């Protein structure tokens, strides 16, 4: 073996080995057929509506806003969060409690959506 402790030498060796590696060809040998047999069982991607992260966030935020407005307007007035907390403490299901629940679920959904779009 030649002296291979020099950085440029190692770089050259890696590149030479990489060229050989890239020229190696693995015969398909039925691989594509196996993949396509699995793909045949799946729905077509043309039928799948893919929402962008921005679209997902807009939908979730809009739904949240709507739910909160409904909760506030159908509630008995006063502070929405305080009402919801008090109702929750007495285990009473009111529009404010439902609104708070929706708010929390929406927050989780937005966090998950944001994480998925990373």
């Amino acid at each position, binding site marked *: 073996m030649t002296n291979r402790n020099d950085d440029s030498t190692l770089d050259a060796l890696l590149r030479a080995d990489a060229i050989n590696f890239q020229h190696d060809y693995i015969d398909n040998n039925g691989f*594509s057929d196996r993949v*396509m047999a699995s793909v045949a069982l799946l729905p077509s991607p043309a039928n799948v509506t893919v929402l962008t992260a921005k679209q997902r966030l807009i939908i979730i935020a809009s739904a949240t806003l709507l739910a909160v407005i409904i909760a506030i307007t159908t509630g008995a007035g006063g502070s929405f969060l305080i009402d919801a907390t008090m109702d929750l403490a007495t285990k009473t299901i009111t529009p404010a409690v439902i609104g708070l629940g929706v708010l929390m679920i929406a927050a989780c959904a937005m966090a998950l959506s944001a994480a998925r779009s990373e």
Partner: protein
Amino acid sequence: MPTHDISDNDLIARVIAHGDKHAFSTLVTRHQSQLRSSLRKMMQGNMALADDVAQETFILAWKNIGKFRYEAKFSTWLYRIAFNAWQTEVRRKSELPLDDETQYEPAPCPPESDATNLRRDMEYAMTDLSEAERTAIIHCYYQDLSHDEAAYALDMPLGTLKTHVLRAKEKMRHRLESYRNDIGEVA
């Protein structure tokens, strides 16, 4: 027009628009060799597992092709899926977590001047590398990706990738140097 004359991006557009399986099959045939080679190298020759992960990669590519944004090359996007699929697979099988320092230790080979032994020498030099370092070297050299592309494929910050490459090369140099010294002592 035969599909083998069509660019990757045009084939992808056909798959997205019409669910064209023939176009996707062409993409699979076109990229299968390089992807399987890379996975085999990442998995240190475990061909069965590499082919399983390659198959899973193409299935995931089919499912998620609507998310392909044409910002990266299709092959780079595939490598990213493959890397994630590989991590999932090894975690599922509890074999080799990414940063596991456990190494295979092949027996040193006697020195040979024949250039055809280059691959064996390089493989020997890579035995000290962690999985992350090994993967970084494979992506940057053997898959011929730029650092930016490799960072995208491995889903890691550019600085982290460069650190892995530098550390890997340092270890490889050290390994090759000590190997040369061992051989010198034997001789």
